[in-house]
């Protein structure tokens, strides 16, 4: 059951919530809508569900337009952020609810059999007689998923379903959701603002900002090959380091105060446009250099890091370590370069201390270069 979204727009008065959104979700695929709050991802989900009307464009489920179809005929199951379970009903009654109301209501006995099947799938059979109020967040989440699936919908929509759970539970429930969704082979759209969640659960991810889909790609492509500055900044933790550099056409270098990157050291095949064209864009508006925290390497410092091989990197500069943040396997080192606060990750056993002077080498081949509008050049 595929979902096709064509030129979808939504405006609230003057405010544009969605602008010309196009998306194709294949049968059985799990797609994440990812973006900061207010980016329009929930609006998009609610339009697909039929809880909001689009201002323009079309939504097709299985090739059939549904924008003028009542939600109940769309074959949709939905999980809301705060679950919206009925507090006065038992878990069993909650799961049975979609089967017991509306025109297609089935007999209690039949509904119970079907509800039990999905309660088994989500592992909540033992809670059948309890009220939602006496369940933990994770258990309530499972009830909500079971209720959304009990009608065997063509499409399952999840609206930030994990944001009310604590960190540890979130990890296990998201694996659980992926397992359940894949077991039922239901086409799923999952809305989240947590990139880690999206990366781990989604077959493909649509990154949204200001009502526009910035990039729709597989998780690894979003990280390794971002379409623009927004996506590059949004994906990855610690966040991408960015530097506004000017372009010196005579020396063919991206020039900054503390370091400069000669165009010659970049990999020509990685340019998004012919190099000559890219150079004229650079000359016109300068650029934003994006460096992932793992592409800075500490190559020398006060405590014998010097043998790390500064000569391996074409660009090396010295700086002062401001602070070091322990994450676990690795540490995040904070320093300032070119008036920007930078973060780089290092092995925790080789982490410097705050106040140390270090040499930083830049893995030039792996950087990203964006034009002044945030479009990707390299």
């Amino acid at each position, binding site marked *: 059951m595929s979902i096709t979204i064509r030129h979808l727009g939504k405006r609230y008065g003057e405010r544009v919530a969605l602008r010309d959104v196009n998306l194709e979700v294949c049968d059985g695929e799990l797609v994440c809508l990812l973006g900061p709050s207010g980016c329009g991802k929930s609006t998009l989900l609610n339009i697909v569900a039929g809880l909001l009307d689009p201002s323009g464009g079309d939504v097709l489920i299985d090739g059939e337009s549904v924008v003028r179809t009542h939600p*109940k005929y769309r074959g949709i199951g939905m999980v*809301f952020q705060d679950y919206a379970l009925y507090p006065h009903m038992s878990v069993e009654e909650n799961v049975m609810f979609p089967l017991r*109301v509306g025109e297609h209501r089935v007999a209690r006995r039949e509904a119970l059999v079907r509800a039990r099947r999905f309660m088994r799938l989500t592992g909540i059979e033992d809670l059948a007689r309890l009220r939602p109020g006496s369940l933990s967040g994770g258990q309530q989440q499972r009830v909500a998923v079971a209720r959304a699936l009990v009608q065997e919908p063509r499409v399952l929509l999840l609206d930030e379903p994990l944001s009310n759970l604590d960190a540890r539970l979130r990890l296990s429930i998201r694996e659980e959701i992926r397992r359940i969704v894949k077991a039922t082979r239901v086409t799923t759209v999952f809305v989240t603002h947590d990139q880690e969640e999206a990366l781990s659960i989604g077959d493909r991810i649509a990154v949204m900002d200001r009502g526009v889909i910035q990039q729709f790609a597989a998780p690894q492509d979003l990280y390794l090959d971002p379409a623009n500055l927004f996506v590059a900044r949004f994906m990855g933790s610690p966040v991408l380091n960015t530097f506004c550099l000017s372009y010196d056409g005579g020396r063919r270098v991206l020039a900054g105060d503390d370091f400069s990157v000669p165009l010659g050291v970049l990999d020509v095949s990685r340019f998004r446009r012919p190099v000559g064209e890219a150079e004229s864009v650079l000359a016109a508006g300068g650029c934003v250099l994006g460096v992932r925290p793992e592409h800075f390497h500490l190559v020398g410092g006060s405590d014998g890091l010097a043998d790390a091989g500064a000569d391996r990197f074409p660009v090396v500069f010295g700086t002062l370590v401001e602070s070091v943040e322990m994450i676990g396997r690795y540490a995040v080192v904070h320093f300032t370069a070119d008036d920007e606060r930078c973060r780089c990750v290092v092995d925790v056993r080789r982490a410097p201390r705050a106040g140390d002077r270090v040499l930083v080498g830049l893995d030039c081949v792996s950087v990203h270069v964006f034009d002044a509008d945030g479009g990707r050049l390299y």
Partner: protein
Amino acid sequence: MAGGVRGWLARVGSYSAERQPRAWLLLLPALACIGVFNVLPLVRVFVMAFQSGSLRHLRFAGWSNFVAVLADPSFVRALVNTGVFACVTVPVGLVVSLMLAVAVDSRMRGSRVFEALLFVPYLTSVVAVGVVFRYLFNGDFGVVDYVLSLVGLGPFDFLNDPRLSMVTLCVFGVWLSLAFNIVILLSGLRAIDPLLYRVADLYGASAWERFSRITLPQLAPMITFLSIMDLINAFKVYTEVYVLFNGMPGVADSAVTAVFYVYDKFYVQGRYGQGMAAAVVLFALILVFTLLQSLLVRRLSR
């Protein structure tokens, strides 16, 4: 003994996060008033129920007051009338106010205005409302009678026909109970998470299913509270009778109620003991009914 007082004073003076006996000092004035004006008279009611004679010369009379009261056909009628009033006005009042509350709560233009209008009766004196109702129900020029005559009913003399006085009283009682019920029910309706209805919409629940499967169960605590409050108030019905029938318990005592009977015995006839015995019987009945009701509600809500 003196040490005990000193110890107590020391404890009162010193600080403790969880025990602050000083609070009793602050409560004392209120407690004194409640004791003198509420608790003491309550005790006196039970004592006087077993006494007879004038207020200055009361003497023990055993169960004779109860025997006299329970044998009085007027008291039996008062109890029956009170029971009928309670059994009619409480459910009817709740159903009507629930319908009005749901109507006002729906996204209707100007629902705030209606809400304010519906609450006005609660702010108005029962006596003033009673005067208006006397006009509305008047047999000669009353609006109610006129409207009924338009659909071919009547004529009815609501205030002077003994067969109709209980009907009139019940209508008045229902109307009076609406305002408070609606305000409480509206607050309950507004507390329901709108998302619950969205989910129901998603699965195509009909309007009746939304009401019966979400609204009603969500309002259950409010309805329980109101039914108990309304029942107690209904058993205490007095002012309504007084104002509607101009200080009389209806023509030929047709609308006499329990409290009216107590009042009549005490102030009009001067049979203090019998009045108090009737009050004790009424107390016992209200107690039994309220207990039964809360048991019933507890069983239903399970």
